[in-house]
């Protein structure tokens, strides 16, 4: 009669132990992978409060343009414009741009005045990930207006090693 092996006949770890170890390893490497410091939506909101204070921010008036799909996050064309007459009494004072998931929430802040004629600028920015980008404009009457845009980045910037 052939000898029956009980499951615990062989020394060494059981299948359950091996599986558990594997899970722990996957878990810890995931934690490491998520680690790199990133701005968060909360950090972005804090940065926006630094600009707006306690004022309420209206939706609209601002137009923010980014390509919907970005191949390289290293130089993404950004254009922001604000609907404003740009007269001596009614003009855009400043425009600030923020992001959710770069290492820092600020992108740039510009100051302009009635002499600009048109409240609009173009630039090129870095994006570390697919995320939401927000522009906030401060008008001469002290009101704030904002607009946001979602962008998908396939090759991120900022965090690569050399």
């Amino acid at each position: 009669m052939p000898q029956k092996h009980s499951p615990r006949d062989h020394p060494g770890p059981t299948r359950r132990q091996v599986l558990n170890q594997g899970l722990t390893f996957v878990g810890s490497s995931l934690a490491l992978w998520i680690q790199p410091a990133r701005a968060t939506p909360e950090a972005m909101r804090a940065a926006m409060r630094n600009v707006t204070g306690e004022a309420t921010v209206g939706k609209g008036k601002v137009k923010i343009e980014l390509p919907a799909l970005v191949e390289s996050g290293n130089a993404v064309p950004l254009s922001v414009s604000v609907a404003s007459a740009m007269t001596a009494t009614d003009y855009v004072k400043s425009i600030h741009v923020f992001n959710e998931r770069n290492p820092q929430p600020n992108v740039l802040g510009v100051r302009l005045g009635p002499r600009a004629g048109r409240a609009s600028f173009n630039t090129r920015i870095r994006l570390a990930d697919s995320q939401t980008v927000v522009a906030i404009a401060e008008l001469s009457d002290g009101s704030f207006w904002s607009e946001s845009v979602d962008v998908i980045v396939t090759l991120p910037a900022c965090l690569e090693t050399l």
Partner: protein
Amino acid sequence: MAHPLLSVPGKAKRGEIVEIKALIQHEMETGFRVTNDGKTIPRDIITEFLCKYNDEEVFRAQLFPAMSANPFLSFFTTATESGTIVFEWSGDNGFFATASASISVE
């Protein structure tokens, strides 16, 4: 290092809104990149851009590491009178560069 590149219309009508473009050669090192041996490369960016039209400030920008290398900005101003438009860039490690262009207004 640091070659500014400007685009300013040489001539404009009085009251015309003209577009100005300014680019400067600069690495804009973010301070977040790490070398293979684990050292963080220190931040080295331009933090401030300023444009003055006949000594009056018409546009100013505060820049952060999220700006691309060789930062580029285009914006508008009203052509009020003939004169000089001066651009200034300043930043980390005492960086300072300036450039100017003249505009004639009829």
